[in-house]
Every structure is written in structure tokens, then in C-alpha cells.
């Protein structure tokens, strides 16, 4: 249990720093007031299609399309 470095809670939960900062940014965006809030949330949309290849063969592509990071 004791480790030399104090690893932050999110690192032990398996998140990378990028995921952590995206969640924090989403929390900040949710604190905005109404007209700016919808504008900011519309900037957050994510959409791409990713396909992992093993040994020269593609697997089925998955579409990663979430409207916001939660």
C-alpha cells in the first residue's frame, strides 16, 4: 500500500492527466450562466471514429461521439 510517491487519486483510478483536466474544464463550463453556458457546451462536442489494427487487420471501428465529457 505504501508507495514512495504520493500518487493522486485520479491516477490510481486509471485516468490520465488529460482526462482529469477535461473533467475539471467541464465542471467549470457548467458553472457559467445561461447564454454563455450553451455556447460553451456546444464547443465541447467530440466526434471521431477510431479503429484499432492488429497484425495488419482492422477491427470494427467504433464511433466515439459524445456531446460532453461526462
Amino acid at each position: 500500500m505504501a508507495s514512495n510517491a504520493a500518487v493522486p487519486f485520479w491516477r490510481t483510478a486509471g485516468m490520465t492527466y488529460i482526462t482529469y483536466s477535461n473533467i475539471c474544464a467541464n465542471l467549470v463550463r457548467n458553472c457559467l450562466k445561461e447564454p454563455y453556458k450553451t455556447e460553451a457546451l456546444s464547443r465541447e462536442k467530440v466526434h471521431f471514429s477510431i479503429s484499432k489494427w492488429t497484425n495488419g487487420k482492422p477491427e470494427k471501428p467504433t464511433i466515439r461521439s459524445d456531446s460532453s465529457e461526462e
Partner: protein
Amino acid sequence: MAMAALRREGRRFAPLISPRPITAVRSSPPALSHEDEGPIGVRYVSTQVVRNRMKSVKSIQKITKAMKMVAASKLRAIQTKAENSRGLWQPFTALLGDLPSVDVKKNVVVTISSDKGLCGGINSTSVKISKGLHKLNSGPEKETKYVILGEKAKAQLVRDSKKDIELIITELQKNPLSYTQVSVLADEILKNVEYDALRIVFNKFHSVVSFVPTVSTVLSPEIVEREAESGGKLGDLDSYEIEGGETKGEILQNLSEFQFSCVMFNAVLENACSEQGARMSAMDSSSRNAGDMLDRLTLTYNRTRQASITTELIEIISGASALEG
């Protein structure tokens, strides 16, 4: 009188000689849709064919002009974003340096390209540089893998580097580009790919006519440690004070992930700018070529028209003189 005779003779010869515009609809296309041999062995193309060609070239010219304007407006929108994003990775380069000559075992080449075509040669140059990097970094116990963004690079790299491909990502530009999108993407790459050094290949946007292919290198935290020990720019890392109770290894890992995300963001934006700029210049030269083609076709059309009129006249006059004579 003479004109009436001319017109009557003209109609009789209609199937052989090119028809007047009014009778164009009634004339039979098959007889005219290939090169006709005139009476004296004069070969000329039917004006019907030339006219159709001119119509299609003109509409192509209009389309390419419209595409150029669309690309110009998209470029304006993205350019400010790209220039603002340059400030994100510059501190990282100042701190950690950009070492393209680093010698590592596991290289991953991230090739950034566009999904749509008609944008000149930028995708081919990116793929050429990626292949060059692959060759440069191959050797005993060294391996290079590809992560491909965009349909165009996928089409080229799938042909001969199938077994080295790790991930393919497409449909990136469906929503306007934002940091959130690119960071989620970077996260996926970090989770799925083992790497010692990531080399990102993209086209840097210097100006509307110049797109320079560049490579940015992001190192994994272990390699940063190793390089720090060997001195040089990274050796100064120890002189920085670390606050907040984290260790140096911790910080390096966070920094490395964030660096990758920032560099990817900038690379994707710059590549998008280059794509729009290249499309603008490609469509511009295409419109100009279409204009040249139209000029040449107009000359051919007029020449053909005049030749057919002359031939008709000759026949009528020789027929008339034969009758008299």
C-alpha cells in the same frame, strides 16, 4: 433570295454538316457525335460536341471558383485559432526541448492528414515523411508504428505498411475543431499505444502558399529522465523547484501527457489550415486551367463553324455553276 437558297441547301445537308442552333434538338446525335469527314476530305469535329464540352468546362470552372471561396472563408476562421494555439506548446519546447534525433526503441509516428481530397499534395508529403521516419528509425530492436488521422493518409499507408499500423482515426472534422476533441483523441492514443517517443507529422501553416511538413517529437517520461541524466537542455530540469508534494516522476508524467495533448491540438489545427490553403490554390489553378481550355475550345468552335459555312458555300456555288454551264 440567295439567303433563302442557302438556308434550304443548309437544311438538306443538315445530317452531314453541323446544324444551326435551332435545329440542334431535331438533328440526330449519332451521326454527329464523332469526327465527321467533310465532302472534300476535310476533317472537323462537330460543333455540337464542342458546344457540349464548352458548357461542361464552364460549369466546372464555376464549381472550382466556388470551392476556392469556401476554402478561403474556412481558412480565415481556422487561422486565428491555429495562431493562438501556438502559445500552448511553446513553453513546453522551452522547458523540455524538441529532440528529433533522440534514439529510442519504440517509435510511434502520428500522421495527420485530411479526410477530404482536392487539396493538392499536402497529404502525399505527410505520408512520404512518415515513411522516411519509419525507415530512419528501423534497425535491430527498434520498431516504428503508425497512428493515422484522416482518410487520405489511411488510403496511402494501408497499401504497403499494413502490419505497422496501430490505430486509425477518421471523421475528425465533423464538429469544429476544439481542444476538448483533440484531447480526448490524444487520450485514446496514449491509452492504446506503447511508446518511447511520439513523432507527430503534420503540415505547418506558414502562409497561404507555403505549407511546410514538420515533425514534432514528444518523449515519454522515462526517456525524459534518461535524457536528463545525459545532460544538455533536459539536464537543467533538476534546477526547477517542485511544489505541491509531488515527485519529479509524477510531474514529468503529467507534463508529458499534457505536452502531447497540446502539440496534437496545434498540429491538427495547423494541418487543417494547410489543407484549406492548399485547396484554395489547387482550385485556383484548376479554374485557370478551365479558362484556358474554354479559350481553346472557343477557337476550335469558331474555326469549325467557319469551315462548315465555307464548305456549304463552295458546294452551292459549284452546284449553281454546274447548272449554268
